[in-house]
């Protein structure tokens, strides 16, 4: 493909073919079944259901009138396997192989949705059929996951049909590099990988940095246990990453990108790798893209899997083929990244926002979210919550809305106790602060962090001392061992927590933990050590009484800790 016209042609013809997914019945096709191919649904054997459906379609002689597509993660993982059937956008959940026949024969052939497979809002009498009417989805706003309900992640044409690569076309043909950076700055987009740094500023620094070549890197290491936001994007919409990176390449003057993906994500690697091949084939990567003289290509680097490899300097070191270990900053990657060259490094989710911002404009993007946190954020809901899975909400949505409305509240009528944001090194926020809007600054003020989007809900059966121990244990395991505060300090914190939770805590242990925590935070080399004490500090801040009960009374109100006298 060489010209904008060609892109438009592909888009239009493909869009026409996919009208059915926008709810327009087709003359030639009866249905498109979008089967969720996210990790959860795959592990509950959604592919077997697809096979069963195919058989059944063939049996009924309509195999050529129905498309079955394995999409990226749709989000509501605890209900998996889930599927959406177009044109009427019927949402099915908890599917089994035996349900294939009912869907094909009742719904597709006769037009009667299978009632027992529909979603029922807790407390509601009637099920809700259409995906767009379900509360769980209505409260969400999808920018990053804009395509996961609609496209076949293995089809570049599907992506193009949804305006894919139009932003790249615009950036290459209608914008100066400086304008692209300005636009990203104006959008207010902040990095979704944890630190929340202004993406536009980062690009600006790198564009201005001396040295060449320059590099564009996508951080797809996603080491937070239980998190799979980035995976969902990589598997569900890989072209959005490629497009975002190419736009950045244009903006900063780089011709080479790297995507660092953890080895544990083989499907993400496969999808991305195929997407890169397709993009090359379509001339959307490679030399002289859209005949503008702009060259850009992307390579995949597979990560060894250590959590700390997600830290930016460790990741860059790892790309260079060395032991993935953080190094001091400055110099920042903007000045000295891969092989010492100026490098932009952004998170998967950050990249996925870029095409939308360029296409629809900074103004549009900045209407979403709060004053200082623009756009949406993808979260992975986990723990004691009814609807576990992936959600995308506008910044500023309150914790209460996420936990109780989108997440469906706490199972078995238990009492909410706290929500942990920011992954293993985030902070625990108690019930009193449920009305806090989720944005970088409000969470920070509570001693928590946005992090990359982990959100773990705890109920009354969770012991907060035990949970602090659990998280610090993770950090002890994942510490790279380079700097002494983190290497030894987190270990000592764990040991103190171990003695508190076994009834051997001492007077002064809380203060010792606080002293350790504040010193580690302020002296550790990288973000891992600098944030590892957060769960301990925040649980002491909000649940100090539980610590005291453990130490003084050998009492665990949640009945989790066992005290050996």
């Amino acid at each position, binding site marked *: 493909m060489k010209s904008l016209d060609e892109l438009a042609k592909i888009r239009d013809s493909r869009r026409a073919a996919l009208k059915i997914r926008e709810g327009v019945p087709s003359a030639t096709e009866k249905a498109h079944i979008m089967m969720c191919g996210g990790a959860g649904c795959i592990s509950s054997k959604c592919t077997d259901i697809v096979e069963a459906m195919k058989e059944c379609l063939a049996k009924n002689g309509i195999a050529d009138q129905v498309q079955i597509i394995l999409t990226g993660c749709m989000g509501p993982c605890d209900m998996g396997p889930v599927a959406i059937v177009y044109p009427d956008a019927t949402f099915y959940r908890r599917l089994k192989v035996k349900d294939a026949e009912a869907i094909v024969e009742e719904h597709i052939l006769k037009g009667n949705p299978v009632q027992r497979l529909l979603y029922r809002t807790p407390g509601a009498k009637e099920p809700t059929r259409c995906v767009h009417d379900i509360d769980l989805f209505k409260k969400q706003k999808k920018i990053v996951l804009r395509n996961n309900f609609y496209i076949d992640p293995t089809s570049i044409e599907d992506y193009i049909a949804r305006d894919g690569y139009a932003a790249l076309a615009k950036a290459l043909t209608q914008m100066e590099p400086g304008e692209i950076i300005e636009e990203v700055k104006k959008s207010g987009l902040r990095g979704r990988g944890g630190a929340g740094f202004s993406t536009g500023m980062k690009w600006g620094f790198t564009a201005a940095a001396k040295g060449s070549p320059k590099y564009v890197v996508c951080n797809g290491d996603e080491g937070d246990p239980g998190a799979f936001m980035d995976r969902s994007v990589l598997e569900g919409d890989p072209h959005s990453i490629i497009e975002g990176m190419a736009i950045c390449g244009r903006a900063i003057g780089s011709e080479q990108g790297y995507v660092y993906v953890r080895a544990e994500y083989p499907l993400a690697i496969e999808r991305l790798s195929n997407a890169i091949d397709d993009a090359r084939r379509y001339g959307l990567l490679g030399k002289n893209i859209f005949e503008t003289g702009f060259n850009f290509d992307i390579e995949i680097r597979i990560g060894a899997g*250590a959590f700390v490899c997600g830290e930016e300097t460790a990741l860059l070191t790892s790309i260079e083929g060395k*032991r993935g*270990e953080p*190094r*001091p900053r*400055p110099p920042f990657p903007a000045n000295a990244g891969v092989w010492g060259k100026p490098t932009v490094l952004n998170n998967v989710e950050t990249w996925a926002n870029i095409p939308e911002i360029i296409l629809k404009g900074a103004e549009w993007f900045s209407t979403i979210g709060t004053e200082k946190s623009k756009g949406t954020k993808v979260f992975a809901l986990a723990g004691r919550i009814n609807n576990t899975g992936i959600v995308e909400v506008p910044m500023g949505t309150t914790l209460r809305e996420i936990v109780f409305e989108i997440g469906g509240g706490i199972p078995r009528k238990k009492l909410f106790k706290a929500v942990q944001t920011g992954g293993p090194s985030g902070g625990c926020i108690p019930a009193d602060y449920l009305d806090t809007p989720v944005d970088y600054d409000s969470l920070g003020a509570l001693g928590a962090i946005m992090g990359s989007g982990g959100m773990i809900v705890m109920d009354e059966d969770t012991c907060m001392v035990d949970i602090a121990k659990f998280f610090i244990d993770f950090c*002890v*395991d*994942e*510490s*790279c*061992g*380079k*700097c*002494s*505060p983190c*290497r*030894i*300090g*987190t*270990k*000592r914190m764990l*040991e103190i927590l171990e003695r508190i939770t076994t009834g051997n805590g001492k007077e002064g242990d809380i203060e*010792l933990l606080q*002293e*350790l925590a504040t*010193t580690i*935070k*302020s*002296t*550790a*080399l990288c973000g891992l050590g*600098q944030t590892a004490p957060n769960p301990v500090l925040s649980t002491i801040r909000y649940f100090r009484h539980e610590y005291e009960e453990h130490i003084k009374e050998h009492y665990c109100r949640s009945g989790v800790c066992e005290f050996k006298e």
Partner: protein
Amino acid sequence: MITLTIDNQKIAVEEGTTILEAAEKLGIKIPTLCYLKDINVIGACRICVVEVQGAKAYVPACVAPVAEGMVVRTNTPAVIKARKLILELILSDHPMECLTCVRNQNCELQKLAEAFGLTEIRFEGEKTSYPIDNSSPAIVRDPRKCVLCRRCVAVCTEIQTVNAIQAQERGFNSLIAPAFNEQLANVECVQCGQCSLVCPTAAIHEVDDTGRVWEALADPKKHVIVQTAPATRVQVGETIGAEPGSIVTGQMVAGLRRLGFDKVFDTDFTADLTILEEGNELLQRIQTGGTLPMITSCSPGWIKFAEHFYPDLLPHLSTCKSPQQMFGALAKTYYAEKAGIDPADIFSVSIMPCTAKKYECTRPEMKSSGYQDVDVVLTSRELGRMFKQAGLDMANLPEEEYDAPLGISTGAGEIFGASGGVMEAALRTVYEVVTGKELPNINFTECRGLTGVKEATVQVGDLPVKIAITNGLGNARKVLDKIRAGEADYHFIEIMCCPGGCIGGGGSPIPTDTEIRLKRIDATYTEDERMALRKSHENPAVNELYQEFLEKPLGHKSHELLHTHYTKRNRYQEEEC
């Protein structure tokens, strides 16, 4: 220039200067542990943190560059408290065997604890408990005492380019070890001991062989002789607190006698002998079209490096043994015969600035006398320790002379201790032997100094002799790669394993840094100038040795006793199953 304020004092420094360096200019000493100037600047230990106005966290002074208008406080109560806690954490994972440790009173960790006024360790918990690795004849690794500063890794990787040890495992379980936690003896470690020189604690140290020497000295049946390497006389003083660069030749000899050595000899003697053998070997190679360039072979760390990494270049190595091993072979043959002592009763000790010599003396080839030629090698550090244990106040000993005949030497033998010295000594002799004329100027200053690779062309009669001199194995690589690529037209190359040559060897007193190396080098040339004879071929004892025993350089006996061969070694020795 960048202007900043440190502890209320304004200072302007060049861009790229670190806070640590800027503070030093103001006379403010920020404590450090992992930092090693120019070599290890990784910000790992966090002992050097300071407060920078406006920064969210403390800033490590050793790695943080200054910035315009920066306001730094190095000694607020808060920052001192933070440093103290970090040190307390490091000590909470330390065996605390100070009183019985080889680095007692010469340990940077101990010094910090004292300086910080640390009186209590509040953390009781797991301690690192990896076993001690004493597989190597020269180097002991004790991971329990390791503070993971990685200076050793930096030296081994960046300076020596051997890469024998790296960080292994992660987090609290981290340790510095050969890949796959292999033992040091089984990997390509060249035993240079440079790691032990920079280790702030006793986590890497020399194998202590003083016990074996004490035992031999106490044995009435043993005739215990000792040789002292050229560099030792400008080093050993430091072990009793003398200024770096102090020359203690006479006191050291006196001290050795008082320890009970029956004869005190000098490696300088065989250094002179080396020049005659090696000089003739060079001439022979030039005249007969032998393999050139010829490379010196006095440095056992370099030899092992060549065997592991450049086995294809082994034919370039001179076949001469090192002066230590020439001495060993002669002591149990020539000297035994001359003194009428059964070589079986001779216990031959050498004092070396070097750990690799400990390894060298155990090589199977080093038995040409029919016995192990050198029985024990002690480093300068160990000799200092023996003096201390014997209550010898070396500073106040009278100066004494070496014993004859193996203690007679020239300035040419003496300068073997400094990088370029072997080359200079060889040139002094080769020139006069070839031209038959006296050298107009005996000082080949182009050979001297710390520059990594020195090159020169020296006119010897009709022949312009092209030479190169390297110190530190990283620099050796540069020249070796040139040879490999066929781009080297040198005749003769001197390669010393350790930075600065032997005066900076892995067995030197601690600390040894660039400044101290330079002082020892100065002392070496001062000592050379003080000598009556300064050319190896003028050494009367060497000439006597040829007349009485060896007959002629490269003769039959020489080949038997003074020359050796080399072995190609694998990068990783295969594990025995």
